[in-house]
């Protein structure tokens, strides 16, 4: 983990209240999709933890939703502005874990299930999965059509993308699990990588027998010192920031 200066290359609105920001700097601490960075903002005491959507050697892409004063401030930042960023935090998704399951079970129908601002880390994951020879389906859930983002980006990777919206204004009316469920109520998928609001994660948990779940929590430090974001798991107490944010399905306690 390092505290580095990044320069904003672009900060643009991509859906209702949702922004995509490109940050230029040293990304070498990022090792896995699903990790996050913790951004210091002028005038705010705590940093803002935001998941990494995608990254290259010298560029990090993040997507955030304006939900409070901090993210409101972020949305006003301009190209060339500099940010102090703790990078990289958290465990991220493990493709090795999926491979272990594949070895054991043979073929597994794999899906990426994202809800709202839980969608971004799944994009970097999709690219890494493709590099590893895994071709997942993608199911993205939003409130309405105006909230939808990254449908095309996932499609451009050559993946099958389905959208669900709560109000039915795009794709299937309902939630992501309505798309992931067969007519006999069984799961269309054997393995899921997911990120989104907790009720969605719970619904996905109830449907798909195996997978990796990325959780959100209010944090102070983001690197495991304060115990602000602790949760109980079957393997003992874990810190969402340091031992997570990704938990394996079998260890989750609701």
């Amino acid at each position: 983990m390092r505290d580095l200066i990044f320069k904003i290359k672009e900060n643009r609105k991509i859906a209702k209240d949702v922004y995509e920001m490109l940050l230029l700097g040293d990304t070498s601490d990022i090792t896995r999709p699903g990790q996050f960075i913790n951004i210091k903002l002028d005038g705010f005491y705590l940093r803002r933890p935001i998941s990494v959507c995608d990254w290259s050697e010298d560029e990090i892409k993040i997507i955030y939703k304006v939900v409070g004063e901090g993210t409101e401030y972020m949305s006003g930042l301009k190209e060339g502005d500099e940010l102090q960023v703790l990078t990289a935090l958290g465990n991220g998704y493990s493709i090795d874990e999926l491979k272990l399951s594949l070895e054991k079970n043979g073929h597994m129908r794999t899906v990426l299930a994202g809800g709202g601002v839980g969608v971004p880390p799944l994009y970097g994951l999709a690219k890494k999965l493709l590099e590893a020879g895994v071709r997942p389906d993608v199911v993205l859930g939003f409130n309405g059509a105006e909230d939808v983002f990254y449908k095309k980006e996932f499609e451009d990777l050559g993946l099958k993308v389905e959208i669900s919206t709560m109000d039915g204004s795009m794709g299937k009316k309902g939630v992501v699990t309505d798309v992931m469920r067969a007519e006999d109520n069984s799961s269309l998928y054997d393995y899921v990588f997911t990120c989104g609001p907790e009720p969605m994660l719970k619904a996905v948990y109830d449907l798909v027998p195996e997978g990796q779940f990325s959780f959100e929590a209010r944090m102070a430090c983001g690197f495991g010192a304060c115990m602000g974001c602790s949760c109980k798991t079957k393997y003992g107490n874990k810190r969402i920031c340091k031992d997570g944010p990704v938990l394996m399905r079998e260890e989750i306690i609701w």
Partner: protein
Amino acid sequence: MVKPDISTELSGIRLSNPVIPASGTFGFGKEFAELYDINILGSISVKGTTREPRFGNPQPRIAECPMGLINSVGLQNPGIDEVVKKELPELSEIYHKPVIANISGFSVDEYVECAEAVDKVENVGIIEVNVSCPNVHAGGMAFGTSAENIAKVTKAVKAVAKKPVYIKLSPNVTDITEMAKAAESEGADGLSLINTLMGMRIDVMRRRPVIANKMGGFSGPAILPVAVRMVYQVSKAVKIPVIGMGGVSSARDVIEMMMAGASAVQVGAANLTDPWACKKIIEELPGECEKLHIERLSDIIGCVE
């Protein structure tokens, strides 16, 4: 000018500098040891420990504030056995100086048991008795807001501990000097102050408290003036040494706290927003001393009349 002497002393224990990470903001040092050599620290006050393991309070536990934060962790810790058998010995492998063992409890007996247990651990230099946690409903601060209870806990812990006993005081009282005197009168070797101030934030969109436990402990730079005032008042009222804390974020803050009367200084919330905060403060201290014409830092302790 010769290089300033930034060392200090607590109850006969020499500290290479006065900077000590505060309990609950530094775990047992592991996360920070990955980032820098923590042996530069004057000492470390480790995560507060109770007799039984505790998960702590429900989520969310954190609320941001202007120049600070409210936490309601609720003394999450692995319990005294695990701390004595695992955490403290592991810390001794990465940190080679005496540490401050922070203990908490829900009864006088529990404080005594925890004190007895940490007293036997080799790398424990000082026992810091937390009678001021605002985040547990019984015990904790319930002890720290009554001079009578502080006297009881101090007396009981002193009866079993061979190592110096420091009582960590709550600011959530009418007159903190009364609490300080109660601890001193029963033989406390020193005092740590201040713990967090009780605070609350409301999510105005949802019309409910931000924190699940409704209220929590407010810390960060916003509370520095309150802490300086209380350290000043207490150090004038007692003869035992005071460890000052509350919002300290820079070498200048350390010096201010020492001028108010602190023999050493703990850094809390700053570790959470900048994991290198203590390192930076220690590195800045000699230069800051030179600027202020301080040859020996310990000379300024309580210099303000």
